[in-house]
């Protein structure tokens, strides 16, 4: 009984004094994305929003853009908790889209990669039911 209590005592002491591991996340400067419209004749429209925990930090300096490969194909406008985005492309194109989102307030960079393909005249989300981006942190 005595030994059990001594072991418990030291275990409690070690647990309680164990270091709080401060998690660190990479932050970025505001990116300067620019769209490339040359050579693209069609587009798809997106109405999107963010996860409820992140939407509260949206700032006027935030930026959401769509990429196909390394090419920026559209930059969103933010209105009333929604992002409105036109993605330009070629008529036969069906490449995967990468959405990138930069939060000016927290300086985190997020992305959603490869979940959707470009489609001429395609629609991703509507005003009444915007698409919620499945963002992951870029480290």
């Amino acid at each position, binding site marked *: 009984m*005595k030994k059990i209590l001594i072991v418990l005592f030291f275990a*409690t002491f070690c647990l309680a004094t164990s270091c709080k*591991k401060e998690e660190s*996340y990479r932050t970025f400067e505001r990116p300067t994305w620019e769209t490339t419209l040359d050579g693209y004749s069609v587009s798809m429209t997106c109405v999107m929003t963010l996860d409820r925990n992140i939407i*509260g930090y949206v700032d006027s300096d935030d930026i959401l853009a769509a990429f196909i490969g390394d090419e920026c194909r559209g930059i969103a406008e933010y209105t009333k908790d929604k992002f409105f985005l036109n993605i330009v492309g070629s008529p036969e194109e069906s490449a995967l889209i990468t959405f990138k989102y930069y939060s000016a307030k927290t300086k985190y960079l997020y992305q959603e990669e490869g979940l959707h393909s470009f489609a001429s005249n395609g629609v991703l989300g509507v005003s009444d039911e915007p698409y919620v981006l499945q963002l992951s942190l870029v480290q």
Partner: protein
Amino acid sequence: MTSAQDTISLGYSSIKQNWYVDGFYGGQILYSTDAENRSNRLTHFWGFDFGKFFTPFIGMEISFDALKKGGSNSSYGLYKADEIGGNTMFGNNDPYREFASIKPNGTYDVDIKYLSSKLMFFTSIMNIIHKGYNSSCKYDFYPYLGIGYLRVVKQDGIPKANALTTDLSFKAKYSVYKNVDVFAQCGLSILPDLFDGRITGSMHHASFNFSCGIRYNFGSKHFSSNIYKGKDIEEENIRTVAQEPIIEHDTVYVEKVVEKNVKDSTDKNKFVLDSLAIVTIVFPIGKSVPIVDSKIRYQQIVNFLNNNPNCKVILHGYADKETGTDYINYVLSKKRAEYVYNQLINKYNVDKNRLEIVANSSKVQHYDIADYNRIVIAVAVLVE
């Protein structure tokens, strides 16, 4: 040999007795609605308490702890600090965010500084099992139940708050030294919503804590018996004595008195005194075997019986009143007397009809020092 006496000793403690003080340290975890993806929920938990046993079975404790309770907020909650239109509506602008490190998922850790005091009542599991306080039992278990007052200190965007809590805990203790115990405990506090400035929609939060500590007991534990319930013992050669004055003489004086009576009295068998203490045998605490099982002590009894055929010897067993309950002391005093009885019969061939056992429990204390009251006194009486 002896049927067990059906006795319940309630016992009570005087105001000055059975106090203790504890110091403890450990950790705590806050479980709160909407606290998502919290990575560092474990925070320090330390404090002290002092308490008292009112009876072997019931005690009361006042406990104080402080420091921090950890939680986690998200960006879409509602906060008391963000009042909209008076005190009836609240927004989601948490002022604490200005001081917090926001995680990628939008949540942030919040450490709430607080002070807490609790009034707890507890019972002793081992004393219940033993039907009273048993000084030889080194370990014990205490379940607690009580209420507390939590004061959240105003800090970094968190408004000050006062809250009543409901507290449960369990403590296991072990005696390592005379007045010092070590213990391990775990507990649960039920806190009302809003205590940390968030409006979660839940009625309560829960905080689980665990710690280890040291207890110092002021003085020895002692409970006085005030009630006996039970049937009388009817045993051949064994009886319980309420109170009986004993006149003490050393062996030499007894022999002289005997001689005097024999020489001076026309009736050689007549004694001046009704009873004479022949020999005292001392026992250690909690034991029924003498500290020194000296042959000369038994021989003195044997010699007296041989020299006084019209006498018999009553073996009075005693226990000190500072340890044990009345029932335990009764059993112990009886066992001590029985030990001497058996030694005289088995090793010295004394006729058992010339011996009698009396278990005095701790009702009679011949000396001020407890050690001197753990004895068997062999008393000679005239056989009528």
